[in-house]
């Protein structure tokens, strides 16, 4: 999921930074329009820590091994704070653990952060359909969690498949990219269930963490 340095061509990396910059500006503008923008920072900070650590939780899906991303979950709980949270989490992962890379930070943030925002919009639909009942919270929580990681996997797939350098064994690389993308299907289910469970839990114990239309 995290694209490392030296894999993508420079133009794609620059495009990633441009897109990430635009989405960051949009998110920060939305956050500053809130009544108390600082209110969401503790929640965002804690979930950034969760995002940072989640990438070490590996799930073996033979023949590959995938790790939790939790971008859909961040979207559901954080709303517009999700994109800056993911950007900061990715920065630390790249600088300290060589997970991802600095040249690909923009691409990775866009690939994981935009689906997080879309997951947030999707999750908000639970108020339209089902008026925030437990069933609709669970259902839309699942769809948002699974959709967040699913969209990110598809975006990574498209980016990688279209930029395989000619000096590589293109067929073999394409086959392994396909295998890795398919390995994300079980992960979608896991993250979907996890997000639904967390959404239901928060709705029961502290609904304002979910509501807030933040």
């Amino acid at each position, binding site marked *: 999921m995290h694209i490392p340095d*030296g894999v993508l061509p420079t133009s794609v990396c620059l495009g990633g930074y441009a897109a990430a910059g635009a989405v960051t500006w949009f998110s920060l503008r939305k956050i500053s329009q809130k009544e108390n923008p600082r209110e969401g920072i503790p929640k965002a900070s804690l979930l950034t820590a969760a995002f940072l650590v989640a990438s070490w939780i590996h799930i073996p899906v033979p023949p590959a091994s995938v790790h939790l991303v939790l971008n859909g979950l961040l979207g559901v709980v954080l709303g517009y704070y999700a994109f800056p949270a993911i950007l900061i989490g990715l920065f630390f992962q790249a600088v*300290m*653990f060589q997970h991802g890379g600095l040249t690909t930070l923009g691409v990775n943030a866009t690939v994981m952060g935009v689906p997080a925002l879309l997951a947030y919009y999707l999750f908000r639909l639970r108020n339209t359909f089902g008026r925030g009942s437990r069933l609709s919270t669970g259902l839309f929580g699942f769809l948002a969690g699974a959709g967040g990681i699913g969209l990110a996997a598809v975006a990574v797939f498209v980016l990688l498949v279209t930029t395989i350098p000619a*000096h*590589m064994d293109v067929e073999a690389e394409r086959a392994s990219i396909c295998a890795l993308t398919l390995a994300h299907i079980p992960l979608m289910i896991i993250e979907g269930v996890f997000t639904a469970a967390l959404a239901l839990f928060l709705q029961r114990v502290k609904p304002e963490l979910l509501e807030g239309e933040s």
Partner: protein
Amino acid sequence: MKKILRFYVVIFLSILVFPATALGHGVEIDYRTTEAIEITATYDTGEPVSEGQVIIYAPNDPSTPWATGKCDEKGRFTFTLDPSIPGTWDVQVRKAGHGGMIHIPVGGDEAAAGSTGYTTPQIILMAASVTWGLIGTALFFSRRKN
């Protein structure tokens, strides 16, 4: 006459098609010793990058691959570098968009072995400090106002 011609054509084709058997009588083999480099590529989970593709870049041309190859099932690949091109050689291993690059110095300050990445205690320490920084930020912004 036609028959003989056909015979020659068959002989000629068989030499073309089976050059190894046709020329397999006298074989000369030379040998010289070189320094080979073995790399082992593993994911950060410890699993080998089986059949990962290896791309080697020479110091004098870092944009065109000098050689390419493929790791075995255990993520190992052995190769020799050209000692007449001193400098830092870059060896990239990648598979399915995952990959890394190791820099191998040739000529001058050569090292017998090297690796990328950190040890597990280092990673745990760094992860703990970053996590604590984020939790501290959360605590700072959620403190009660006097």
